[in-house]
Each structure stands twice: as C-alpha cells, then as structure tokens.
C-alpha cells in the first residue's frame, strides 16, 4: 500500500508519499476546472498500478461556496421562521457603509418551506407535526427543482423527532438531505441553520467530485478527506458532511507545521503562513487549537475548525498614501494579474516590490530563476511615491514593510495576547511563499525569541494531510444550569456520544485499540453568552474559573456556572505512518552554494549580505545575519539581528536578538 497526501490548494497540486520505506514528493500544475485530473495524474505517476491510500485536501466545498457554485438548495423549517437564514443576527458588517448589502442568500425566499410544528427548550413537543402536511411539504420540496435540502427546526438538538421524520420523507423522494441536529447539535438557530444550509449547498458538488475520484480508483484503494478540524475522514463520510472540509488545505498546513515544529523540539508554536493576498496565523499550545466560531464567504459555519486567523495582507498587497497622509498597505492586492511591478505588468507598489527594492529578493533565484523579475521597473515608481510621502525611496520601501508587518503583528496579537498567551513563550513557525522575508521582523516586534522555517515548507500542507489522525467531532447543547451538575449525568451524555463514535470509527476502519476520546465541556458563568471549552476531568469547574481568569483577567468562583455544550473528539491514529516524515524525504539533488556579497538594506543602511542556497545546507550549518537563504519557492531573510542554524531534521532555526 502506498500512502499519499494530496493538497490541491494552490497553483500546484502537491503530493507527498510513502512507498514501503521510501518517501517522496511530487508536484503538478493544478487543473482548477477539474481538480481531479491533476490528482489522478499524480497518483498514477507515483503508484502506477499499486494500491494506494490517499488523504486528500479538497477545495471543492470551499470553492463552491466562495464562487457561489453550489447546488440549488431548499430549507425546511418551522412556520414563521423561514427567514431566520436571511435575518441572520440583524447587524450590518460595515458600520459606516450607507449602501451596505449582505452576502447573497444561499436559499432564495421561494425555496424556504415552513411547516407547523414546535419543540420547546425542555424537549416537549408543543405542537406535533401533522403527517399530511409533512408529506405535502416534502412533495413541494421535491417538485421545487432543488438538488439538496437542509432541515432545521427549533430545539431539534433536544428532540430531533421532527427533523428525523421530515428527513425520511424527503429521502424517500430521492432528495439529498442535511439534518441540523446531525450537522451541528447546538443551540442558536441562525448559526445552526447556516451551517446545515452550507452543508446542503456543497453536498451534491462534493458527492459528484468524490464519486468521480472513487470510480477512477481500484476497490482496494482507500480515499480519505482532510477536515477543517485537523483530522481526516473517509470519502463517504465527507460526502455526507462536506461542511467539515471547508478549511481542508489550511488545516493540513497547520497540522504539518505542528509536526515540523515538534521534530525540532518545539510544541508551543505560532504558525505564520504569508501568501500573496493574505496571511494565516494560528497558535498551537502543545496541540492544534480549535474554534467553533468560523464563517466562510459571510456564512457562519460552527463546526470545529482549527483556529486560523486570516488578515488581508500578503506579498501582493498594494501600498498607497491616503488623503490624510498616512502610508497604507492593503487590503487591496495586485493579485496575479497585474501582479507586483517587478513581475512586469503591475503599476502600483506592492510588498514584494518593497522587498526587492531593498535587495531582500534575489532576481536570479526567484522560482529557481525560471521567472524573470524586472527590478529596473521599480525606481521611477518608488521615486514618485517617496517624493509625495516626503521620504527617501529606501525609507518608503522599509516603511511599506513596517506597515504590513504592523497589520500582521495585529493578527498575531489577536491569537496570542488577546487570548491570554504570552508570545515570548512561543516559537514562530513560518511557511508560505512570503513568510520567510518577514518572520524575523515580526518575531522581534512581539519579543518571540525564535523562528523556525521548516524544510519542505512548500509541501507542509500535503504532509499534514498524510500524517493527520482520523478525527470525528461530536457536540450537543445540554444547558445544565445547576451550579454543579452531577458527574453521573454527564457520564451518561458522553456515553451516548461515545457509542455513536465507536460505530463511526469502526466504519472508518480504525482498530478498537487505536481509538482515543477527548471529552470537554463548553462552560460559562450563568448569564454570559460566550463559552470557554474546558477538558472534562475532575476539577473542571475550578479549571473553568482558572481559564476565565487567564483569558479575561478575572474569575468569579462565587458565581454559578452552567454547562452549555458537551463535546467529544474521537479519533484513531493513522496506521502505517510513522512520524519521521521529514528526515526521510529526499532533497533536490543539484545543491548549489552561493557566497556572493550583495547589498541589502536593513534599518536604512546597506549591508554586505551573503546569499545561501538552502538545498546545500547541512545539519549544524550556522549562518550569521545578514544573509538571505534562497530556495525554489521562497527566500528566508536573516537580518543583522538574527543568527540561523540548521538542525538535525533540516529545519532552519533563527535566534532573534
């Protein structure tokens, strides 16, 4: 069996594989109109006719939402609440926009079907669902031209009877159905409906894509899909609950980054993935951190996802002077077209241009020298804009970098300091095309003592997919309000979830002895509206007070607490994958060493700077700043205030003075 991790997220479809004792990587240009083409071509190249187990990070669900190319979707809900999906939380996303518009609705008005039935908070059926009306509504849905249907009734997570009944009727008519209590068994009807509707919206697309892939594989091959929560599930489970895969690629990146950091001995990490238009950051305190408050394309999706914070600043972000005289960078991006000035067609200065202007990008080695840069195009534009800003061109270039670093610093502060973590206890792990040019500066801004730039940063995401555990998340709102609910009560609740988890993991092919369970509780002080997730272990109430104090600066042990949700994370380790991936992957053979002294600007002074070929570095090599470490798809800037070493697994470690 050949194990293959496949990430289709970017320009390239990345493969990382293990065949017996051999590891390898492979890259192919992505085929956006039919992503499966590149995936299958790569698999054939790697495995020939051998059997494969593929873990795939799919962008099908994400793109269906962002490009609004999902299925025609209907919604069945309580009569009188058909518009909840459109009402949302009734606020406008932009306070001062006099022409504010919401994201367009996934379910148009005429595809929302109300039916008379009602459950109240304690699970009592206040108004039953009439069989005839239910059958009539099901028929209307089937005749409406919808390809997929979401069913969401108030308090269905307490008493799912009506949803289950309606689901059966719809399935009998051949509809693809998503039931809210199965997708997200938690209170707050808008968020639950939205999550369920998004699932329904992408399900037919995901099913089509995965069926197609499965058809092209042998029966003995296995296909798993990366989820947003950092674990994988079988293709069949992903077809039912595709909403769990919308952050597939970035989640693979974080899991891969965690693994890369762990290999170098660091488990308290802040990942920093800076790309062309945006930057993703995530904090890992010994494990990936999850959030239950995400959204995509303006639609809330509350299934657990790796907590990734995104800021609209990247290498392509455009710099400009605003009417008040401040230098601004982004969020507008030059994108791939026209791209930065130095790519040949752009006319407005980007972050990449500023790096090049200061000498921090080396044109000869940009993408291995395959893409020609045009540094000569920069000078006139920098002169013109710097005159307007009353700065020297060099000050302008450094200023642009300071401004973009300050927006990324803000993102890093949000995930660390604002959540009660001291960044000085963490290591910054940088990946993504532009990250290496900024990481050392950001670390200095936040007092982070060390930066790790992993080897194979370009295939980190595929690697994360390959090594990810199989993970299933379960949750249910219970709203236990006694100040100290009996633990027996909770044991029962977890017991029910675990029974379901055993079955699901069995379907996933996990051996019983490989199964692990993590139980946790979402808790808050009675009367609050935001919960903190606390591991379910003896002393969990005290732990809640402690976490509240860490996050918000105070705890109130005298106040009653309530348990809002119970959560179970169930999983099994991937079989046949040891975690020595990184050491085993062979490097590119044609190592080159450059020792050219090059002028690079740091702190408004020109420094004679060495250029080092990353692929030629060996364990134990030391590089004192200033230096540029270049590789195929990225450049690591080692500023004068930093020193870098190469560790045993090929990762570059930078100490920040």
């Amino acid at each position, binding site marked *: 069996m050949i194990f293959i991790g496949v990430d289709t997220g970017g320009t390239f479809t990345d493969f990382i594989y293990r065949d017996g004792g051999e590891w390898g990587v492979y890259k192919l240009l992505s085929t956006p109109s039919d992503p499966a083409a590149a995936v299958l071509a790569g698999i054939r190249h790697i495995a020939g006719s051998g059997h494969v187990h593929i873990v795939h990070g799919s962008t099908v669900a994400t793109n269906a939402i962002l490009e609004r190319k999902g299925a025609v979707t209907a919604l069945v809900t309580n009569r*009188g*609440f*058909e*518009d*909840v999906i*459109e*009402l*949302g*939380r*009734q*606020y*406008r996303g932009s*306070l*001062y*926009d*006099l*022409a*504010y*518009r*919401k994201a367009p609705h996934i379910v148009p008005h005429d595809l929302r079907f109300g039916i008379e039935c009602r459950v*109240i*908070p304690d699970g009592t059926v206040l108004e039953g669902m009439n069989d005839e009306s239910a059958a009539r509504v099901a028929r209307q849905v089937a005749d409406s031209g919808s390809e997929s249907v979401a069913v969401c009734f*108030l*308090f269905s997570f307490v008493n799912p009877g009506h949803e289950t009944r309606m689901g059966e009727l719809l399935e009998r008519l051949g509809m693809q159905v998503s039931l809210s209590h199965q997708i997200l068994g938690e*209170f*707050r*009807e*808008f*968020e639950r409906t939205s999550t369920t509707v998004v699932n329904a919206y992408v399900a037919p697309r995901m099913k089509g894509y995965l069926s197609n892939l499965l058809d092209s594989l042998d029966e003995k091959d296995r296909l798993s899909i990366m989820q947003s929560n950092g674990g994988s599930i079988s293709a069949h489970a992903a077809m039912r609950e595709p909403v769990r895969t919308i952050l597939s690629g970035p989640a693979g990146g974080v899991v891969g980054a965690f693994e890369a950091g762990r290999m170098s001995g660091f488990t308290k990490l802040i990942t920093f993935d800076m790309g062309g238009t945006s930057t993703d950051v995530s904090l890992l305190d010994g494990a990936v951190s999850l959030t239950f408050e995400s959204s995509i394309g303006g639609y809330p999706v509350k299934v657990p996802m790796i907590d990734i914070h995104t800021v609209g600043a990247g290498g392509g972000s455009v710099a400009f*002077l*605003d*009417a*008040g*005289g*401040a*230098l*601004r960078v982004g969020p507008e991006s030059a994108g791939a077209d026209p791209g930065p000035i130095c790519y040949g067609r752009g006319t407005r200065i980007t972050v990449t241009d500023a790096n090049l202007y200061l000498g921090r990008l080396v044109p000869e080695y940009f993408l291995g020298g395959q893409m020609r840069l045009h540094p000569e195009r920069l000078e006139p534009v920098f002169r013109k804009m710097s005159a307007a800003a009353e*700065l020297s061109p060099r*000050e302008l270039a450094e*200023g642009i970098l*300071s*401004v973009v670093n*300050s*927006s990324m610093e*803000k993102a890093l*502060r949000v995930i660390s300091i*604002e959540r009660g973590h001291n960044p000085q206890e963490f290591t910054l792990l940088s990946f993504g095309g532009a990250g290496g040019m900024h990481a050392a500066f950001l670390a200095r801004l936040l007092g982070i003592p060390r930066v790790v730039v992993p080897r194979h940063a370009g295939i980190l995401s595929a690697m994360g997919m390959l090594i990810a555990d199989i993970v299933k998340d379960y949750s249910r709102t219970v*709203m236990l309000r006694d100040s100290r609910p009996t633990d027996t009560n909770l044991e029962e609740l977890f017991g029910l979830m675990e029974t379901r988890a055993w079955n699901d993991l069995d379907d996933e092919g996990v051996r019983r002895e490989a199964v692990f369970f993590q139980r946790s509780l979402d808790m808050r*002080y009675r*009367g*609050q*509206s*935001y919960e903190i997730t606390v591991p379910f272990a003896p002393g969990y109430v005290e732990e809640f007070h402690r976490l*509240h104090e860490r*996050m*918000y*600066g*105070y705890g*109130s042990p005298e*106040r009653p607490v309530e348990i809002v949700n119970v959560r179970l994370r169930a999983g099994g380790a991937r079989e046949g994958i040891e975690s020595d991936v990184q050491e085993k992957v062979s490097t590119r053979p044609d190592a080159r060493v450059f020792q050219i002294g090059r002028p690079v600007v740091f702190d408004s002074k020109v420094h004679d700077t060495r250029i080092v070929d990353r692929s030629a570095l060996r364990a134990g090599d030391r590089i004192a700043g200033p230096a540029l470490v270049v590789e195929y798809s990225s450049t690591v800037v080692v500023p004068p205030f930093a020193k870098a070493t190469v560790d045993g697994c090929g990762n570059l470690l930078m100490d920040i003075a």
Partner: protein
Amino acid sequence: MTMKIHPVLIEIFKNRFSSIAEEMGVTLNRTAFSPNIKERRDFSCAIFDGKGRMIAQAAHIPVHLGSMPLSVEAAIEGADFEEGDMVILNDPFKGGTHLPDITIVAPVFAEGAVPSFYVANRAHHADVGGMASGSMPLSTSIFQEGIIIPPLKIVERGDIDWKLMNFFLNNVRTPDEREGDFAAQIMANRTGIARMKELISTYGIDTASFYARSLMDYGERLIRSAIRRIPDGVYSFEDFLDDDGAGEQDIRIRVKITVRGSEATLDFSESHDQVPGSVNAVYSITLSAVLYVFRALVKEEIPANAGCLRPIKVVTRKGTVVDAQFPAAVAGGNVETSQRIVDVVLGALAAALPGEIPAASQGTMNNVAVGGFDAVSGRVFAYYETIAGGMGATARSNGESAVHSHMTNTLNTPVEALEYTYPVRVREYSIRRGTGGKGVFQGGDGVVREIQLLSDAEVTVLSDRRRTAPYGLAGGEPGAVGKNVIISSGVRREKGSKFHEKLKKDDVIRIETPGGGGYGPATPHRSTPHDRSNLSS
C-alpha cells in the same frame, strides 16, 4: 517639542490605538451579563489623550461617537486621579446619554502625577432601576428613568468601593447581572491600561503623545476633504418624530447645513422645544449623529476621533429636543431621536450630493423591554431588545432588508437563547415582505417579531415611524410605517409608537418594523415631483 509626522509611524499608531480599543471590547463583550452588552454589543470602548480628547474608538456603536468625550471630560473634571482609580457615571446632563449607558473612565499614568492618557468604556445595562423594567420607560422626568450616577470613583487604587457599589445594586432590578457587567467593564479598562503602557514603553511617552495628536489632525484632514466635495451652499431639511409617548405629536427636527470650503455648520435651532415625554436628546447625542453622517461620507477606514469634529460646528438652542436640559426625560433620545437627526442631516445633504445619499432607513430602533417575575425560575427578569428594519435604497442598489441602520448596529438575541433564559416564546420572526418603498431601487423590508409571554410581565415599547414614513428619494416611494400590536385572548389591539402596559401570561406582543425608502420613481418614464413636501432647500 517638534517632531515630524512620519507617514509610517502614523499608520502604525493608528493600528495600535484602534486594536487596543478593540481588545477592550472583546473582553467586555465576552464576559458581560446584560443581553445588551453580550449579545447586542451595545457598548463602546475608546482611548483619550491627557486632555480628554478622543484618539480612537472601536467601531461598535455610532451613537456613542460624540458623547464618550463628554463623559470623559466630566469624569476628569474634579477627579483627583491616582493609579488604579476609575470613575463611573451615567448622568445625561453631566456627560452621559441616557441612564442605562454607564461609562467607566480610567487614567493611564506614564510619568508624573498627571494622567497621560485615559481609557473608557460605556455599556448599556439591562436595568438601572426607575419606573419600568429595562429602564427605557415612557417617562416625563429623568427621575423616573432610574438611578442617576454623577461622576464618582467606583474603583480607588485598584479596589472597588463596595459602599458605592452596594448602594447602586440596591437600586436596580437585577443586581447580580449588574455586578457581573461592572466586573467586565472594569476588566476592559484594565486591559486597555496594560496595552497603553506597553505601547508607551515601546515608543516612549513623547512619541506616543505626538502621534495621538497627529492622529486627530489626520482625522480632521480626512473629514475636511470629505466636506470639500460638498458644493458650498445652504441645505435644509426637516422631518418628524411621531410623538413623545406623553401626548405631544409631530415633533419637528430641523437642520440647516451651511457649507463653506472644508467647513460645515449644522444649525438645529428650529427644532421642537423639549417635550414632556422621553424622546429628548442631550447635546452629545446630536453631536454623535452628525459625526456619524460625516464619518460615513469618508470612504476610507479612518479613526473616529476628536479631530473629526474640528471642521464641523453643531449649533443648537438649549431646551430643544436636540439639546435637552435638566430634568428632561431622555431615555428615548439616545435611541429614537438620534435616528431622526441622522435622517434630517442626510436628507439635507441629498440635495448637495445627488446620487450619493440613500433614502431614509427605518429611522427607529424598535425598543422592546419586558420585565417581571418568572414563577418557574423564581427570579426577577428584565429583558430588552431592539429590532432591525429596512435600509433606504441608494442610487445604485436596493436597500438591505432586516438590518439595523445608522446609529445602532446591535445583534438580535437568538430565539433559542431567549427561550432558554426568559419566560417568553417567540411565535414568529420573519421579514415583512413588500414594506420597502418602491422605486427604481426598492427600500429594504422590515421585520416581524411576535413574542408570547409565559408569565405576567410589564412591557414597554419605544418606537417611531408608526405614522410618519421613512422618506424616499429622487421620486422613490416612502417605506411602510411600522405597527405595534398586542393580542390578548385572540383579540388584536393596535398600539401607538410608544406604550407601556402590564400584560398577562399568554398575551402576545407583535412588532412590525418599518421598511426603508425607495430611490428613483417606481414607474419608469413618469417623472414625479420631488418626493417630499418637507424638502425645503
């Protein structure tokens, strides 16, 4: 000290100041107990310089824009601040807005005995006592609206003054919640102080103060550039509040805007005298509404700060509904009158900037307060919510349906959260189709919210636009007016804009909110005269 403004540092300081204010807001939002704060985000956090001038406010609620500085000014006056002190206040005639909005101000010491900066936050508490649950009553005097707190130290050198706190808590209906909210507010300020000190230690007090001042100049430049786009001239507009809930009807708000170059004077002197009912707005609210409109004219992200107001002069006559004097009732001035002030300022500017100004949005916040004793839980409860409506259409697109507009931007409370917590059942929550004004572009639709009581309770509704409709523009039709209905034992009774009533278990309150105005004539090729007779430029 002379320092040159560096275009890079000014951008960095702008980011840092605003993220400090935002982080204060996160603490407050996530730990508070009042639905108004935790679900509806009816609060604001801001940073001030040593003279009490606002440097940055997190983009929370516009109605606090112009009024926070006056609170800080009142708190500073006479307070002999020491490290760890915090001053509390809600007196509308000493820097407040209406009594439920409680502001807590704290100094940031960098060097010397005088504070270098202040941080402050204001939050709308669900109850501050007075004649009605929820403290948004149909009152005729400030004394009926709740407990009045003049500027007083609630925290002294880091310790809460429990005498003062207990005195306050004994005067409100839900003291446990209030105490939790105060803890959240105090902690939000502590977060702000800690971050300000970090900033000062990184850049030094001189640089930090210099850029605080520079940011005000920066805000001023951006607002001036927005005003410069308005052709010089005089633009007038008037509109009306339905009533004051105490018998006074058709309460006029009138503005005359004079634009000269990069400066604007807004004269509200011809507005209605202050009224017996609770729709009187204190001056700071009028200021907030004006600042909101001019801030919205600037397309770029800018900090809302003291500099933004420099090119704008707001003239009022004391003793009017836009500059109420003690002891006027003011509970609704903040929420209802503020919306109408925005309507008239935008209405006047529509003549100056054709195509850029939208038709009127719903023009009310539809405040509903429900309070009583919940027999099942054995607890007193006080619930308050505001309901969205239609936004006005613009020259380029339809108005959005079912969102809060202009001076508020609070969230709804989810039906399931509401029913878990209070003895109520929601029977309908839907979009009120067809209520947006017709036009080339349609106004947004309003909302229907129907709530059944599961225990006896008193209900206060403070709303408007039940008689005078949100105007259309450029020939567009007005949005539909709202409707307030009570259904007891199957019998429907339509109520006015503002009412207070003791209701029985099983009674139903049904609120239908207004639509937004349309833009451009609904029927093509048939030009209609200018849409509103009250347009009098």
